[in-house]
């Protein structure tokens, strides 16, 4: 199993969620985060004093998938989150040791 962590632009969340749903990924966790890679921040002005906004709002999407779904999920995210402009985000893939459904106690890919 894999845990796929994707950092995407906030307004792309719905597209990513729909794309994952279309390929059969049913569970998803979303967190509001701030960050930057190579995308620069911008300056804002408050009562004559300039200040730099470095940390840009992003959304972190986490999905746990079985190994055979991993490539399809990555492709779904990449296509739906892509705008072609700087700051589109990144995807990280981690090995997932185990997964458990709390309600029933199912483990492994049955828990996904």
């Amino acid at each position, binding site marked *: 199993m894999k845990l796929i962590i994707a950092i995407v632009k906030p307004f792309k969340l719905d597209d990513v969620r729909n794309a994952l749903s279309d390929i059969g990924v049913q569970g998803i966790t979303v967190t509001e985060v701030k960050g930057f890679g190579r995308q620069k921040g911008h300056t*804002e*002005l*408050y*009562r*004559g*004093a*300039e*200040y730099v906004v470095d940390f840009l709002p992003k959304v972190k999407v986490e999905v746990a998938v079985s190994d055979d779904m991993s490539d399809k999920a990555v492709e779904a995210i990449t296509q739906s989150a892509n705008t072609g402009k700087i700051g589109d985000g990144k995807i990280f893939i981690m090995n997932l040791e185990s997964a458990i459904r709390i309600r029933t106690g199912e483990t492994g890919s049955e828990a996904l």
Partner: protein
Amino acid sequence: MEGQVIELAYALDTFYFLVMGAFVMWMAAGFSMLEAGLVRSKSTVEILTKNIALYSIASIMYMLVGYNLMYPAEGDGVIPAVNFFLGSGDNVAADVVASGGDVYYSGLSDFFFQVVFVATAMSIVSGAVAERMKLSSFLLFCVVMTGLIYPIQGYWKWGGGFLDAAGFSDFAGSGVVHLCGAAAALAGVLLLGARKGKYENGKINAIPGANMPLATLGTFILWLGWFGFNGGSELMVSNVGEANAVALVFVNTNAAAAGGVVAALLFAKILFGKYDLSMSLNGAIGGLVSITAEPLAPTPELAAIIGAIGGILVVLSIIVLDKSKIDDPVGAISAHGTCGIWGLIAVVLSNGDATLGAQIYGAAVIFAWTFVMALIFWGILKAVIGIRISEESEDVGVDVAECGMEAYPEFKQ
């Protein structure tokens, strides 16, 4: 029949005082929202607490001693007689009718109209010292400001003291209320120091306010309340001449605020390249303060210009104060002090009875008295219990440190 007319006029003018006073009371909500919007979220609860507490302390201190100091039964023009308590007695109908209309309003309605003004003066201080002052020190200062410092300088002008005798003109309080509040604020800010991180290595750092909608709401509430502030200061509405005067005061007040907003908006755009909402809000206040010394004599067109000049001055003053490392998170000293002085001077543009010399004299006396007295009391507080919260408290935020409460507890940082 004539007795009935006199009684009716008394009732109308009393009602007028009470309603206009209620409008000015509503300005306390305006200040609360404006200040809450311009500080960081971690300082919101404390500034709201200050605002409701200062209004209440002002109401009590003015009732206990301040009102009688400001409008004493006797005084030598500089030192008023000291009397305590208000009591609940008032005019009797037979006396009112017998006076032929000279006695035309309830004594208690006059108190009510005046007490909301002292609260306004005190609330100017709360914005300037925001985010780093100890709450207890602020409240103790409030007791002294509303019970002594404000009433004495108020006596010198509105209580018939020596400033009034010298020909100093201040219709609704650009000097007595706004400059006075700003002087006390400046004294406090100088002894307090700037917020941590505001001025570093010669750079002025922005500390953006947490809630622009609240700040804007607060400004609109103040604008509305100001119709009571200036309109009520005409003190009478029950005949054609007075009713017309009140109408003109309302129109001029509105015109000055509008002029202030437009001027500040455009001026900030020219200076910074962007439209700055917070400067526009300060512009409205600056315009309103500028017309407060004389909202009756000018034409509406002149009132708009006076307000516009106030709008430009408030922007300039904010910049100058920041460059001087005087940290005023809401621009209170600029809007009420700088524009208060301008408002007093602008009186001579439309009021032929006023002289530049008397206006400057009045401004100087009010400023000197308030600034020096405030410096003394802030100084005593600083020496005895301290006026500034600790650095750790400032890091975590004065809400948690002093009030044990967060304004938005569900939005964790």
